[in-house]
């Protein structure tokens, strides 16, 4: 059997070695952080600035799709956004769009403590809907009349008993809509009702769908933040530090590993192509 050339050897590194090196590069900074400075991107600034400009009494519907698996990627964004929102005088409705979301949101609000830290009371300043899958027809019914889909909140209290819901009947009464999806998920609010949208927690490959809909001046999507690295940026920009900035180093070093292997792969390819099997 012919011996492998140097290029072939560089080009066929055992995949288990790749796994090991990348895994270690990611794990080391978690044990002992390096502290790489974070730079804030324009879309993150635009997102935070939009929230800061909310008028008192702004009604917000947050479509919350946080689920346990994806939390490391998006939780820093959610936590920083909740804090930003609770600092304003807004009315917040939370629409759970994943079966895990009620558990996640309970945990997040326990961390944030809206009443103790921001003086925000459940039912007066914010409320949570129960989880229910919303196919398109059901979602349109919801936009037409919220009570046609939800008669009670997550805790079983009738919506009419919540003071903040007295003036909120349909999507006509909603000013801003927060959702992870800029393309399909926003249509029922932005098109018929002209509700403005902000994209949050846009992970799992939804981020590239934002640019066709994003325009900080004319919308329909006025700002977006997606992914753990942008979570760190949002924390830095707003001064609300949390987990996002902490895991930044691990992400950086892991990517260095990936880059090195891609470079090796290309060296092997061009070496074999131009220098032959020597």
């Amino acid at each position: 059997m012919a011996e492998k050339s140097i290029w072939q050897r560089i080009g066929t590194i055992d995949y288990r070695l790749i796994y090991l090196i990348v895994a270690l590069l990611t794990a080391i900074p978690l044990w002992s952080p390096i502290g790489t400075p974070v730079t804030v991107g324009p879309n993150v600034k635009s997102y935070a600035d939009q929230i800061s400009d909310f008028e008192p009494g702004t009604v917000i519907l947050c479509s919350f799709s946080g689920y346990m698996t994806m939390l490391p990627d998006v939780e820093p964004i959610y936590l920083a956004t909740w804090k930003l929102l609770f600092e304003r005088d807004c009315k917040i409705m939370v629409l759970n769009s994943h079966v895990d979301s009620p558990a996640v949101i309970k945990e997040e609000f326990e961390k944030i403590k809206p009443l103790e830290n921001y003086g925000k009371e459940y039912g007066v300043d914010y409320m949570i809907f129960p989880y229910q899958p919303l196919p398109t027809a059901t979602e349109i019914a919801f936009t037409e009349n919220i009570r046609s889909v939800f008669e009670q909140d997550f805790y079983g209290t009738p919506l009419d008993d919540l003071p903040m819901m007295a003036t909120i009947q349909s999507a006509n009464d909603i000013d801003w809509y927060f959702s992870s999806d800029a393309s399909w998920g926003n249509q029922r609010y932005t098109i018929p009702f002209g509700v403005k949208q902000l994209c949050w927690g846009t992970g799992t490959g939804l981020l590239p769908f934002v640019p066709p809909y994003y325009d900080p001046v004319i919308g329909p999507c006025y700002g977006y933040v997606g992914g753990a690295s942008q979570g760190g940026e949002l924390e830095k920009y707003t001064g609300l530090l949390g987990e996002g900035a902490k895991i930044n180093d691990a992400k950086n070093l892991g990517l260095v590993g990936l880059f090195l292997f891609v470079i090796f792969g290309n060296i092997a390819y061009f070496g074999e192509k131009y220098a032959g099997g020597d």
Partner: protein
Amino acid sequence: MGLFYTNRIVEFIWLVIMFVSVWYYIRKAMNDEPLPKIRTIPATLAIEEGIGRSLEMGKPVHFSMGSDGASLTGSGMSTTIASLGMLRFMTKNCAMMGVREIVHLPSQGYAIPLVEGAVREGYLEAGKPEMFRRGDMHYYGNLTAAFTPGVYESFAREGVGLFVHAGSIITYSFPVLEAAKIHGAISVGGTPRWTATYIFAIACDHLFIGEELLAASAQISGNKMLTSGLASEELWKYMAVGLFIIGFLLQAAGIDFASLIKM
């Protein structure tokens, strides 16, 4: 207050054109008049080749429309229907060649009967309804973290000659395609879900890019009524290209195109 919303006229005209054009081409197909010829989509040929290869290797063919690829509402609905068409075609071919087919079911419980129905119809069309086995339809619950190892394990246990992964697929399916490669299968796949297209570009032997899947499903069905739909869709695409160009020219001439199109 008028009965009709007056700020949705352009949109409504689009809709009317769409209905009329679909109806026009359906009439043409019903009258056996010639329809525009559709170019061959290479990945469709690979499916038939793959089934033949599986027969030679004595390995089964696997099909999956993704772990949550059977939505019946929203933009995923058309993909679900296209995938069902593809599954039916594959099953028919497998049955005719005597190759075992294993189907990995999507998580949506309400859609399982549709998938099972497509398989049954496929066997029926091939004249071999007795080949249907419910044991070859595998279900893994409502989570990709369970779906992927389940498919992986099935490849290892049963072997795989061809893996067709087509539907409303999300990026979590990447490890499944890697597994098919590791087990020596030919993999064919694609999704109109643009965000997940890259997994097929990186890990598949033959892929359907974006909406190609919908066209491929119509093409392989050999059904003139289905291909007639594609002809009307082509017309809309030319209209869209025309609107891009006209819009640019109008805007350059100082006419507010955005207001016109939102009329």
